[in-house]
């Protein structure tokens, strides 16, 4: 039972192609985190306040 093992088996093609597909998947996940997920989380971080008041 392994989540990443399952993905690896589901990827089509020979090993060389699988490596490229996996790299694309990783890139897509990191991009999604950078563009959508992390900007949503940042306001809750304790070091981003610079103003007085509010």
């Amino acid at each position, binding site marked *: *039972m392994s*989540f990443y093992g399952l993905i690896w088996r589901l990827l089509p093609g020979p090993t060389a192609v699988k490596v490229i597909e996996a790299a694309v998947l990783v890139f897509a996940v990191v991009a999604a*985190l950078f563009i959508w997920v992390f900007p949503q989380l940042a306001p809750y971080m304790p070091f981003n306040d*610079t*103003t*007085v008041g*509010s």
Partner: protein
Amino acid sequence: MRVVRGVAGLLGELLITLGVVLLLFVGWQLWWTDVVSDADAAQVVDTLTADFDDPDWVQPAHVKLGDAFAIVRIPRFGATFARPLYEGTTREVLQRGVGHYADTAMPGEVGNFAMAGHRTTYGKPFNRIAELKKDDVVLVETKSTWYVYRVTGHEIVAPTQVSVLLPVPNRPDAEPTEAVLTMTSCHPEFSARERYVVHASLDASYPHDQGVPADVLEVS
């Protein structure tokens, strides 16, 4: 036994994934936000510079919330340090440059012209705020004028101490007679526990087409 091992394996994968995502978040916050904000700020400064040089471009009499209307230069932070000054201090604005507290004086005006900037992350315009010394220059460039403020001092206050923004900082009943500048950023670095506040006062102003004397830009 196989089931236990399988579950443990899945849990292990999950924990490793969480760890990697946390590291990625740190990388995003400490590095990527700077990359994005620096590039954006440089582009806005270029646009403002071109606007200021364009004789047909008119600075709006009333600046809208979220609009960039001036360029902040601080020689102590480097000869090329220039950041756009936006109206307002919303999160969106502060991720792009320096923010002007909307209900405070405008550059050059009698009263307290107050601005906020990030000390860490998002291009960290005020990262080196604690290096500012007495008489250091803070230049504010608008379409019409170069305003030269000189640092008078600093204080470290609680985030709730809004009195630093008063027309005469920290003196609620005083009537302003002087044009002063107040800069706020977080303190200590990477914390929101306190605010680092720098006060400055207007030393001189020069018409924009005349430029600023070279010695103003020198750092002692």
